[in-house]
């Protein structure tokens, strides 16, 4: 199996695990109303290890999994996919052009990427209760930032099992 195919299979397995864990446990992990978005977080962190096209594809499949599971009421299916694709594309572009993978940048990108993905989603599919929605998205952004570091090391370990540490 070629290295890029192996990486693709590993990324797909990671997304599938994130989708299952998101559905089963993310709601139980809530702290003061804050719930993590494991699927989006995994996609953003995975994009740090891909090129531009790879990260866009990762964002697309993360969005598709997310949309198929959440099936947003009153539209928003395509908005979820496109917002995730755009954010992961951005992360892949930044990683390729501006910086290499780094734990602190992963933390920063997890927070920024979550806020941006939800902001784009809102732009494409506006919600009724803006304040409540902003509050929930803010809490999810914080939660994702907290989980970013441990998950970053996990993703790096999973994608580069033999990398020098």
């Amino acid at each position, binding site marked *: 199996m070629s290295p890029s195919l192996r990486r693709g299979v590993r990324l797909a397995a990671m997304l599938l695990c994130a989708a299952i864990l998101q*559905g089963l446990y993310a709601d139980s992990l809530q702290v003061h109303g804050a719930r993590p978005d494991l699927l989006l977080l995994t996609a953003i962190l995975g994009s740090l290890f891909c090129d*531009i096209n790879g990260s866009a594809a990762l964002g697309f499949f993360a969005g*598709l999994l*997310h949309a198929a599971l959440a099936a*947003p009421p009153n539209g928003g299916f*395509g908005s979820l996919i496109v917002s995730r694709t755009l954010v992961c594309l951005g992360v892949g572009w930044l990683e390729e052009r501006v910086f290499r993978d780094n734990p602190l940048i992963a933390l920063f990108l997890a927070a920024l990427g979550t806020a941006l993905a939800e902001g784009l989603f809102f732009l494409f599919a506006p919600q009724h209760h803006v304040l409540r*929605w902003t509050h929930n998205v803010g809490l999810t952004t914080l939660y994702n930032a907290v989980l970013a570091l441990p998950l970053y090391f996990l993703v790096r370990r999973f994608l580069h099992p033999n990398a020098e540490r």
Partner: protein
Amino acid sequence: MRSEKTPRVRRYWAALICLLLGTLAGAWHNHQTDRGKSDIVVGAVRGVVAPPSNALGKVSRWFSAQTSWIWHGHAISEENQQLRERIAQLEQENAALREAAIKYESLRADLGFVRAQKTSLLAADVIARRPDPKFDTLVIARGGADGVRPNSVVVTREGVVGRVFEVTPGTASVLMLTDQNSGVGARVQRAKSRATGICKGDNSKALSLVYLPNDADIKLGDRIVTSGLGGVFPPGLPIGTVVDVRAEEGNFLKSARLRPFVDFDRLEQVYVLR
């Protein structure tokens, strides 16, 4: 001489295809759901995710049940005793209500009303609870193949959970009452007051009962049940209790905050009314 710069379109080809596919998938999904049909893309993705989710969920619940005595050992025996007493009391109430229901049905028949439809309950495991933190939705492991349809009502022993809004052959998505897109006709369950309004969610733990007339007789502690208006939810299903009543701007209407009977954060198994 060939330019070393790759054309942008060729450089971002996969990204462009993904964006195009995302837009098409969204348009296709909206087209299918608007026609009340199931989306084959959603069905295929859930076909992959649902079996491992369901299996892991069952293992988790089993493990949680096996180890719960470690955390709740003392409380369980006390709760057990209280539940036994409650069951005895409820059985008596149940017998009385059965009698009343028989009388009610026979009186309705005498007066020429259509006989109330019998409904059956279909148990369903929850395989994803709030898969997107922004929406209060559930995915259950029952779908079109089990007779679940869009707008099927979902309940627990405590009260109403919500309604089905999307169905695939093996799964269904449920819009919980707490979601901001949810609305159900509701009324006060008290003999002297039948005040009617609409129960709405706002993605918080509480519910709002809105569009109550200003002179509506509603008090703290009142039980709120479905009114049956709207045609989706049958009448009399428990929703919650009133914890706050306030006048709306202009004093023409009233609204109330409700504490739902159902704990939406702990749903593991629900029932679909068929």
